[in-house]
């Protein structure tokens, strides 16, 4: 059981880290602000979600898990709003 959980954690966190890497490459290589934004938010939100998922089995239930999920949701809200603001700024100028 614990071996399976560990394998799951390693896989999920690695995938998450890969998405972060992809997002960063996108940020650096994509041609304009909007596409960069797309790469960054998509990959980071997914990456963070995967890392959060991978860590879930290792924290105390229920409050530790709730805290982890809350972190992810809050980052989602913040990054969604921030990219909206940046996108609007791009559109308006």
């Amino acid at each position, binding site marked *: 059981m614990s071996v399976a959980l560990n394998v799951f954690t390693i896989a999920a966190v690695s995938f998450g880290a890969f998405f972060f890497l992809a997002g960063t490459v996108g940020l650096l290589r994509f041609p304009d602000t909007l596409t960069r934004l797309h790469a960054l938010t998509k990959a980071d939100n997914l990456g963070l979600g995967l890392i959060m998922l991978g860590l879930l089995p290792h924290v105390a239930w229920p409050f530790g898990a709730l805290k982890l999920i809350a972190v992810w949701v809050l980052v989602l*809200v913040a990054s969604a709003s921030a990219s*909206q*603001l940046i996108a*609007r700024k791009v559109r308006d100028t």
Partner: protein
Amino acid sequence: MNVELVFSLGLALLILAVAGFVIVARGSFAAIVGFVAFGLMLSLAWMGLSAPDVALTESALGGGVTGALLLGACARLRRASDVEETLGLVGRGAALVLCLGVTTGLVGVVLCLPDPAPTLAPVAKQSLASTGLGNAVTATLMVYRALDTMLEKVVLLLALVAVWSLAPDRFWGGRPVFGSRQEKGGPLSFLARVLIPIGILVGIYLFWVGADAPGGAFAGGAIIAAMGILGFFAGVSAVPAVSAFRLRVALAAGVAVFLGVGLAGLAAGTGFLTYPENFAKPVIVLIEVAMTLSIGVTLALLVVGPPGESFGP
């Protein structure tokens, strides 16, 4: 070398690289963005040093609120018309030699620090029982060295008076001008509406658990301040006028309660800043409530700046 050491080494190198970037970057904006990243990585370093209380304060204040303050300043200074003469080559060389000397000396001292290291951890732990607290850092701030904490609250209040004193006379008594007015209903105000209640809850939670777990009035107050800044910036809540009496009370509450409790101890004969036996924890929590409020409001208003709008409608 184990994994933790390798991770620490990598983090330390990264911190140095970012700090170097902050110092030498060409543009102020880039330097400030680098500084925010620096603050976040520094809080990771604090976790590595087993100092979660400091990590919380550093990430909230060192990176977050300071970053907001500096970015705001940078945006307003964009039109600054300066022809800055940089230090000459000789001057820069001299500065470099001086700084290298200081760093070398410090590295030498760090490597030669006594072993075993002198520490107050056992004394602090041993005295913890009489305070009713479980977190030794909070106990140090609120009990063992309460005088420092109280004076430091005075420093914070004084800093705000100092910032206010920079207002032009005609604006005195009015509200600071802050944030974008036209964004009403946009994503920013959405974010503010969603985040502020949660953030204030988190701030209160941090202060509350600070008695026994990492957290405390400083971390909690900093998060509440961040929520205030967001609310003011999004136009969701109005910046209070500097002459408003209720605002003054909220700002002075922390020092006032601290000083009041201290003087009560003096009057009762047990001594300045002593806490009543068996009731130590409730009294400390009372001080911390007032402190969290004052810290939150003061930090937020320090970022918002001096009044820039005449009093009245």
